[in-house]
């Protein structure tokens, strides 16, 4: 502190307050850590309890007082759940649907967003705002006619019914359009002068430049599609076409009181997503600040 005073007055202020804040933060951070760790425990305990129960034999799950660790740990719940839930099939179905829906939606939305962001033509803004406005229609409003339409098209109980209504999403279009404003026009014009076709410019110039938005949206829509529930519940009726959340919900309705089984089912549904999340969390957490929606 003495050394600070000998320096120029302006610097003195910044340096000494900087020091003060640092000290204060350090002091207060300890209580921050304690509160945050307590909170983190609250966040984690349900998952730990889920895993712990899933390794317990049925008799142990309903013993009192409850124990954190199973006395006779068993994998039976997993074997039984995997079989009864037809888990391999559910994973495949869900992954297939989620991947297809995500790729199509992100690709088409980037293309549409590019057109709205980088071209000038009559009626552009009107069309864009009509598309954007469809975003606020609650799903509950159009799910009923959509279901009737799908049945009339003969697409009830097919994956077409899951994929077709999600070919493009207004919000993804909106985000891409916003992102396009950051790409300089000169770059496109340079491409055109070199004689590149519009498709070439989009695929070779625009898509690589949009990598951050694409990564975020892919991670994001994949997670969202993986967990989608209401629409698959309505249109899919054959059990061998079920997706994971629907399969799990039906399983819980059937085996509600066998908590070892339902916890094994929940674990099997959660663990792959958590692993995927840990691998891609950077994109997702960044994406939320970008998109502000779940």
């Amino acid at each position, binding site marked *: 502190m003495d050394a600070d005073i000998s320096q120029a007055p302006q610097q003195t*202020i910044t340096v000494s*307050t*900087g020091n003060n*804040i640092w000290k204060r933060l350090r002091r207060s951070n300890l209580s*921050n*850590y304690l509160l*945050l*760790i307590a909170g983190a425990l609250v*966040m*984690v*305990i*349900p998952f730990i*309890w*889920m895993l712990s*129960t899933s390794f317990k034999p049925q008799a142990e799950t*309903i013993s009192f007082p*409850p124990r954190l660790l199973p006395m006779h740990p068993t994998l039976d719940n997993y074997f039984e759940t995997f079989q009864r839930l037809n888990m391999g099939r559910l994973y495949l179905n869900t992954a297939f649907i989620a991947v297809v829906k995500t790729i199509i939606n992100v690709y088409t939305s980037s293309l*549409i967003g590019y*057109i709205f962001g980088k*071209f*000038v033509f009559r009626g552009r803004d009107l069309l864009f705002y009509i*598309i954007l406005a469809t975003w606020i*229609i*609650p799903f*509950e*409003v*159009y*799910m*009923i*006619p959509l279901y*009737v*339409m799908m049945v009339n098209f003969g697409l009830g109980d097919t994956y077409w019914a899951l994929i077709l*209504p999600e070919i493009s999403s*207004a919000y993804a279009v909106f985000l891409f359009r916003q992102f396009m404003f950051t790409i300089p*026009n000169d770059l496109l*014009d340079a491409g055109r002068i070199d004689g590149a076709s*519009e*498709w070439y410019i989009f695929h070779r110039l625009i898509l690589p430049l949009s990598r951050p938005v694409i990564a975020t949206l892919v991670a994001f829509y994949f997670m969202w599609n*993986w967990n989608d*529930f*209401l629409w698959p519940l309505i249109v899919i009726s054959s059990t061998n076409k079920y997706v994971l*959340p*629907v399969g*799990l*919900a039906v399983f*819980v309705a059937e085996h509600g009181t066998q*908590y070892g089984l*339902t*916890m094994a089912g929940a674990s099997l*549904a*959660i663990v792959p*997503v*958590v692993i995927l999340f*840990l691998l891609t*969390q950077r994109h997702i*957490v960044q994406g*939320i*600040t970008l998109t*502000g929606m*779940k």
Partner: protein
Amino acid sequence: MAASKVMPRKAHRSSVRGGEFRFIATVLVPTTIFYVLFRLYPLAYAFYMSLHDWKLLRVQQTFVGLKNYQTILNDPLFIKVVGNTFYFAIAATVLGTIVALYLAILINPIERGSTVLRLLYFLPVMTSTIAIATVWLWLYQTRFGLFNALLTMIGLPRIPWLQSPDWAMPSIILMSVWAGVGFTMIIFLAGLRGIPRSFYEAAEIDGATTLQQVRYITIPLLAPVTAFVVVTGLIGGFNVFQQVFLMTRGGPLDSTRTLALHIYDYAFLRLFMGTAASMAFVMFALVIAMTFVQLRIQRTEWEF
């Protein structure tokens, strides 16, 4: 300056050639078809259905005008359902916002380990609501569930979490707040990063306490973010479905029956699609109202 900014635009506009036009048309024609076929047409169709006594699989649907709207608005159960939905949306949003803001303020100054903490808080956000509800169904179990076991161990009476009409909704809300708080926290953290450090340094010099800094700098400066979080939280809350579908099926005594669940039941179990469609438009009205609030807030100039 102005000229140089306009120039490339003009050049760009004049460069609309055949190839460009074809490109735009190739993309926008299917796009328009998609949004008309899968969004606008169903919207109109839903309204049309709401004016009919519409039953699935029936050949002829009878036009009834606004009778469906009249019926639901005079139905005490529907009023209760709307009330439940507001109860959930408001309580979950208010609680979730407060907890998330508090967590964000706690986590913001932390450097070491903040990534791990953020990941832990974010874990339920990643997870399917159905899986989370499955787990909490077990935690809430009256006799052997973890929560009541812990209560009994410290000598408190058991709580009939999902079994009593008074406790069921608070239980669903508690779970939903737990599941969503990590998401809101991340949004608040982004907002906090936007507040200049110098504001706090200035307050520090004036001798403001941490609490005063939160009260007079953080909260007012985060107002736009908070408004966004609250409005989107309410809209999301109006749609609550999976939790109540799996955990209570709307019971006990319809105390957790929400709009989305009610619409689903009417449309796909009872097959009264006209009535269900009219209920969906009530929900649409709520969402539109919230969206206008949101647009108003966004237009407001925030000055500090």
